[in-house]
């Protein structure tokens, strides 16, 4: 068992597709919340396999894309701190703030380093005790426990120069917020690796209170297709519950050790999402005990963020209300080489996925996107 190749089998995928076709009578919209799912859907051409009654909508599940420009500007301002080193994941460096991005700051002489793990940022701080190291922590619940572990490590090492700009976000509150805005979809393909940490329970209110089936899915083609099948079956039968397709990756109660680490270091906070505004309880902030690690006090207090560039529809795309190809800038003024909005910058952004895969063999399938 290699835990991946087995779930990429063509015959298996064909069998699941034929099951979806047999089960689907109505017309259903399903939202794949997670950017990693969006990429899987496009890379494997899954949309083209689905019957007409199943429409996939991409949701706000790319942490880079949903980080508002004002937060990117805060990260950029840390580049100007005397002697400072900004460390972050590669996903963030090209995302534009008001006028520049971290890569641009680096080109102008700032010390910006891409790290693979939060521990790499702690290690940088250990090696250069005289310089402040700012770890710009971005990501959902999958990534936040690693930040918590890094802060606890820095604490136990007694590091005085390690700081975290916490941009982490929680996923279930934003699904709820989407529904409250009248958006979302009839069923949700829920993020498998977020749920490896938080388990299935946080999605129960979406099924129970909103009547929207939720299936927690893995990321191989057979996983995503099977999740679609389970959702279609629930919808056809008028049921709404939380099911786990990705049982090899997700225990119902999640990962207690990672949850404990996250809970020890972070408390719940409100957080702003690009395209969605402020979402209650969807953020994380450092608890009082770890407040000395908060990089927020180094951020330039006089920051003023510019509005989004004219024409950019990333907000509509993130709410699942607009297919990327229908944005007037898509593919013309906004391309991966010259992106205008974050959904085109991030490799897991909906626009980048549509651009890279959706155009293969011709124009994007506009009718089906509508």
């Amino acid at each position, binding site marked *: *068992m*290699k*835990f*991946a190749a*087995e*779930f990429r089998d063509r015959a*298996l995928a064909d*069998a*699941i597709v*034929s*099951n979806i076709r047999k089960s689907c009578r109505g017309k259903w919209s399903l939202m794949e919340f*997670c*950017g*990693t799912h969006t990429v899987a859907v496009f890379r494997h051409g899954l949309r083209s396999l689905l019957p007409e009654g199943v429409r996939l909508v991409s949701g706000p*599940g*790319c*942490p*880079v894309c949903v980080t508002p420009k004002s937060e990117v500007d805060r990260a950029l301002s840390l580049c100007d701190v005397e002697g400072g080193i900004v460390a972050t*994941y590669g*996903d963030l460096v090209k995302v534009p703030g008001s006028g520049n991005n971290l890569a641009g700051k680096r080109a102008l002489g700032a010390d910006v380093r891409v790290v*693979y*793990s*939060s*521990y*790499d940022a702690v290690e940088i701080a250990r090696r250069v005790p005289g310089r402040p190291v700012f770890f710009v922590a*971005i*990501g*959902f619940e*999958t*990534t936040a*426990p*690693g930040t918590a*572990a890094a802060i606890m490590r820095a604490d136990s090492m007694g590091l005085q120069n390690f700081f975290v700009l916490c941009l982490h976000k929680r996923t279930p509150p934003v699904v709820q917020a989407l529904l409250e805005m009248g958006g979302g979809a009839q069923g949700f393909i829920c*993020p*498998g*690796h*977020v749920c*490896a*940490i938080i388990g299935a329970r946080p999605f129960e209110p979406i099924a129970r209170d909103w009547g929207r089936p939720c299936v927690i899915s893995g*990321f191989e083609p*057979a*996983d995503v297709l*099977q999740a679609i*099948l389970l959702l279609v079956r629930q919808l056809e039968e008028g049921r709404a519950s939380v099911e786990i*397709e*990705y*049982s*090899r*990756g*997700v*225990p119902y109660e999640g*990962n*207690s*050790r*990672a949850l404990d*680490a996250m809970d020890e270091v972070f408390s719940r906070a409100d957080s702003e999402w690009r395209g969605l505004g402020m979402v209650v309880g969807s953020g994380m902030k450092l608890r009082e005990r770890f407040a000395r690690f908060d990089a927020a006090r180094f951020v330039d207090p006089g920051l003023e963020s510019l509005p989004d560039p004219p024409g950019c529809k990333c907000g509509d795309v993130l709410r699942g209300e607009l297919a990327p190809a229908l944005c007037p800038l898509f593919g013309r003024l906004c391309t991966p080489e010259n992106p205008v909005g974050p959904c085109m910058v*991030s490799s*897991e952004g909906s626009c980048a996925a549509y651009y890279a895969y959706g155009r293969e063999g011709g124009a994007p399938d506009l009718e089906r996107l509508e």
Partner: protein
Amino acid sequence: MCLAIPALIVEKRGDVAKVSVGGVIKEISLELIDRPADVGDYVLLHAGFAIHRLDAADAEETLRIMREAAG
């Protein structure tokens, strides 16, 4: 960004493990995993941390359900 990939543990010292990802060896942390994982086990690896130990029985069961439904 929530990509996590199966990685095979090839060496282990306390909470630090060496894993093989398609033949590439990486050092990772086991501090956030809540089931014991040992050499020969696969874990889900995300940004330097193992976040879950994968069990062959769970994976086989999913494959069985997928195939059975296809009947």
